[in-house]
């Protein structure tokens, strides 16, 4: 009953975020984020009915859904690159190299994992698989945040909320999956509450942060340099005008 309520609250919040995104035209600003949201929503609604009809089938659906949403979640990381790091080529280079390395690690892990863990039961394997993928994601997001903090990069309200909500969800998923893998099926009931509940909390954060458009501030130095250039250009234009006038006076008979 409780898990159903949490699930429906999540669906409602997700739908609200998407509706608000359309209304405030944020959809065009953050397409990857909303694509992720739409993807999760599309998968969650039928998941509920699958669960109600047959809980055994739901297991397969759940893991498929988790895998797809995990991959779609990288859309949020793309938004971080696009909106937070792109004005800073140096910091972006740092983060990009880290990202490529982590992505390579994920790919290798995903290819090697089924071969290594073929002896485990399917459900344990999937729990550990998702936990490990979340770990990689957690390391990746931590790396990005370290770069952002180290270089003192300013983040707008929208992106702050997006990062905070997603980061919180990753942490909760990671820790709960680790406990689930350690404690075994006895933790499953608690885990079924914690996992969607943490996602609902993230949805609330996203709802508040993405209510209206708050762009990431443009680097001040660039504004200043441009302003300085504008001032210099204005002075030069003025000087040229003065010289033209002088020349005109000299040239006049």
């Amino acid at each position, binding site marked *: 009953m409780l898990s159903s309520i949490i699930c429906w609250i999540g669906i409602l919040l997700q739908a609200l975020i998407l509706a608000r995104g359309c209304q405030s035209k944020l959809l065009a600003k953050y397409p990857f984020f909303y694509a992720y949201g739409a993807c999760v929503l599309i998968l969650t609604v039928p998941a509920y009915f699958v669960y109600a009809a047959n809980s055994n089938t739901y297991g397969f659906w759940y893991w498929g859904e988790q895998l797809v949403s995990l991959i779609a979640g990288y859309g949020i990381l793309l938004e971080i690159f696009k909106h937070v790091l792109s004005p800073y080529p140096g910091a972006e*280079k740092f983060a990009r190299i880290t990202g490529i390395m982590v992505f390579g690690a994920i790919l290798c892990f995903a290819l090697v994992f089924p071969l290594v863990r073929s002896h485990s039961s399917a459900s344990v394997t999937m729990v550990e698989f998702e*936990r490990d993928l979340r770990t990689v994601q957690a390391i990746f997001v931590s790396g990005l945040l370290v770069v952002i*903090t*180290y270089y003192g*990069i*300013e983040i707008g309200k929208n992106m702050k909320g997006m990062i905070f909500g997603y*980061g919180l969800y990753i942490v909760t998923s990671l820790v709960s999956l680790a406990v689930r893998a*350690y404690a075994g099926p006895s933790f499953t009931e608690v885990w079924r509450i914690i996992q969607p509940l943490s996602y609902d909390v993230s949805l609330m954060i996203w709802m508040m942060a993405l209510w209206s458009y708050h762009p990431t501030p443009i680097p001040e130095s660039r504004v200043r340099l441009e302003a300085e250039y504008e001032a210099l250009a204005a002075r030069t234009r003025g*000087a040229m005008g003065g*010289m033209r006038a002088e020349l005109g006076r000299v040239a006049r008979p």
Partner: protein
Amino acid sequence: MIQLILFSLIGALLVFALFFAMRRGPRTEGSSKALVGARQALNSLQAGLLPPELVERIFAPEDYEYVVSQAPKDVRDLFCAERKKVAIMWVDQVRQQIRSLMRFHLGSARFHAGLSLQTEIGLAVDFTGLLIACRALQVLLYLRGAYSAPRMVGATAATATRVCRISEESLAFLNAASIGGLDDRSAGAARLL
């Protein structure tokens, strides 16, 4: 159990990263004002704080030996207390100027697509090491007086000089000639206006 602790630690790492990323303020370095500030910090370090004569003078054991041999206990204590204050202030100034250089460097480096990862990591290690060394030195000077860690003083001053040299290279484009040239051009343009 070890696995559980390991994954929890990774979770904690992300929580800390989130916390620091959300709470810290923006860095606005990279503008002309910051460039001049960094140049001043560099000058202050190279000309005012790090010259070997000054460092040797502040931490000179000869002064202490002279006072110990010639002056009564009250004067000796006063001398030690005053010298300790001067030494701590010197380290504090060095630390502040290094922080200023570090802020400028990070504020500027983030815009450069040609940034070198190796240099950045090397500088990060140098800056962090220096700041930690300065703090440790302050604590040591506070606890044991100005003459407690001559080797550490020497090592800190040497590393700071090295960092200054690297920073100077990155600030090379802001030499007096180019600033003067810019100023002259601006003044010339202003006169024409």
